[in-house]
């Protein structure tokens, strides 16, 4: 696997992403360069051939996403990485991956938008897009990283969840995490849990490619394995063939959602810090959660019972964990490097607690001092 695991290394977030992907078994990368995600492609182009994998730079992000889906259909774990403009272009094919249940991982290293925006500054403007960017009803898993270490561990989780639930998983990074170097010890390959898609256990004649089961996740046969079947972005019946029968359509779309709902407890990852006795809390994700952590520590040092709930999973929105925080705290601060996206979700699941926004949209990381000042005022 990744020859670098087990060592202590100084890595950038984008580099750790690559090591994590390789450790998770990723053997295919297709993409199109874009700041600040390009290093992921560059490193993949360097590293993949030696491990028998394949790198290809496609003509655009649409093509990158298409190739990633194709490779996954052929049985190979696949990755692409991009930033806002490219992520927008991937949306149509991302929807295909949702509909045809093709596991794959998409890293979006967020920069400031909209449009070309500020290509070299960080932001958290693509959170809602990650959930809702493609048309039609579809669930999707969205994870966020905040440290170089996260980049490794979270992308491993991303591949595992993608494989287990047959769903594209989106990992949101940002320019800061991507380009920060930290000393990390990559885990021993043996210590890393790697999950592969469930493959059919029945002989080909018995294989029903989209048959529901207790988990709601059908076994997936790869092309060329003898389990010939049809894959389509049209709504399909359990055999994979297009259908328009309302009951089949309904069952299809609901299963897409249920398989994720079934997995809530294992998908919804959060990291509560000093929350035990907290009376005020910060809910944060990505690089901002680092500022928040410092601010909370500072508040604690002043005797303020502050706590932090760091969201690693943004979607499916970790409602339970957030509700618990809301129930416990009289006020909750949601600092974001956008005009307020996750705060909408927090408000949605809120019944009583006062939720306070803290936004920054100038391409600069929210500082601990800002958050601390805000906490003091709460």
């Amino acid at each position, binding site marked *: 696997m990744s020859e670098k695991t087990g060592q202590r290394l100084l890595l950038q977030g984008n580099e750790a992403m690559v090591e994590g992907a390789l450790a998770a078994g990723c*053997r*295919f990368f*297709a993409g199109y360069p874009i700041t600040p995600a390009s290093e992921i492609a560059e490193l993949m182009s360097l590293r993949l*051939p*030696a491990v*028998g994998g*394949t790198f*290809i730079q*496609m*003509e*655009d992000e*649409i*093509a*990158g*996403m*298409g*190739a*990633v*889906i*194709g*490779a*996954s*259909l*052929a*049985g*190979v774990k*696949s990755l692409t990485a991009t930033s806002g403009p490219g992520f927008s272009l991937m949306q*149509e*094919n991302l929807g*295909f991956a949702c509909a045809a249940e093709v596991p794959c991982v998409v890293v979006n290293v967020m920069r400031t938008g909209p449009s070309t925006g500020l290509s070299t500054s960080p932001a958290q403007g693509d959170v809602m897009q990650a959930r809702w960017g493609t048309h039609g009803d579809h669930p999707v898993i969205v994870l966020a990283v905040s440290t170089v270490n996260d980049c490794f561990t979270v992308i491993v989780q991303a591949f595992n969840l993608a494989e287990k639930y047959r769903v594209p998983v989106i990992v949101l990074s940002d320019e800061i995490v991507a380009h920060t170097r930290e000393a990390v010890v990559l885990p021993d390959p043996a210590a890393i849990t790697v999950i592969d898609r469930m493959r059919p256990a029945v002989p080909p004649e018995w294989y029903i490619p989209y048959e529901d089961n207790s988990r709601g996740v059908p076994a997936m046969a*790869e*092309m*060329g*394995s*003898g389990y*010939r*079947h*049809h*894959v*389509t*972005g*049209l709504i399909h019946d359990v055999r994979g*063939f*297009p259908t328009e029968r309302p009951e089949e359509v309904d069952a299809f779309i609901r299963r897409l959602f249920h398989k994720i709902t079934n997995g809530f407890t294992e998908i919804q990852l959060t990291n509560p810090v000093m929350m035990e006795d907290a009376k005020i809390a910060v809910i944060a994700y990505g690089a901002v959660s680092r500022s928040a952590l410092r601010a909370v520590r500072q508040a604690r040092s002043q005797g303020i019972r502050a706590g932090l709930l760091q969201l690693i999973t943004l979607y499916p929105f970790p409602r339970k964990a957030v509700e618990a925080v809301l129930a416990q705290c009289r006020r909750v601060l949601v600092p974001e490097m956008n005009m307020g996206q996750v705060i909408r979700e927090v408000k949605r699941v809120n019944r009583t607690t006062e939720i306070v926004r803290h936004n920054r949209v100038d391409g600069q990381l929210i500082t601990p001092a800002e958050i601390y000042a805000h906490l003091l005022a709460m």
Partner: protein
Amino acid sequence: MTEKTGSLRHDYLRHDKKFPHVWCPGCGNGIVLGSLIRAIARLGLEKDELVLAAGIGCSGRMPVYVDFNTLHATHGRALTFATGIKLAKPALTVIIVMGDGDATAIGGNHFIHAARRNIDLTAIIINNQIYGMTGGQHSPTTPYGSFASTAVWGNIEHPFPIAELAVTAGASYVARGTVYHAAMLDDLLAAGIAKKGFSVIEVMSNCHTQYGRRNQMNDAVTMLRHFKEQAVSVDRAARMTEEEMAGRFTIGVLADVDKPNYTEEYQKIRERARQR
């Protein structure tokens, strides 16, 4: 040389549930499908090792009917999915069927890039000179001056020469056929599939429902006759003047060159990378 279709129907088609197919009576798509399975039979390819991918359009419905590994991708993107499949599993024989709109309108970029990269894929482009599925809007191959649902005043755009574009973009094997010349089409398809590298077979096909109807060719028979009359073999065309060729098109093999293809080359990179 020509395999008949009768028994192949049972061997290669998902004949038990999917037929009669959705295409209109006389639609050229069915003729191309027949040619395709004959070409495959001739090459003796295993169904398990075959992938048929398509985009969206009437032609995009083809994969449903064949008992291979089949894929119905997004509109215009079939070549990108196919690229991923081929690179991930080079042992698979990957064939892509596309409409003229699918391949050269929304998918035009992927088309020229797949040709440029010379990935070992076979692209069959069913050129019916119209958007069949969505109701007869003009496509990048609709002839100048003809009519379509979005060219109600007569088309002022100039058509792409699909095969010639593929040649310039770098495809290894490029041919053009018609559904009237079905036996020849078998040959072109078989040669294209057998070729290592990117192959393109443009097939002039009839959509009398959406194209013919608006252009004084109301049925399949009229359109097939039209192809019979307009098609000129590459050899003969070389001896014809430009005036003689006006309104006509060439059929046959337009390019057949040998150059290293992407998966071969990538394998070499892997070996070098492993040694480092």
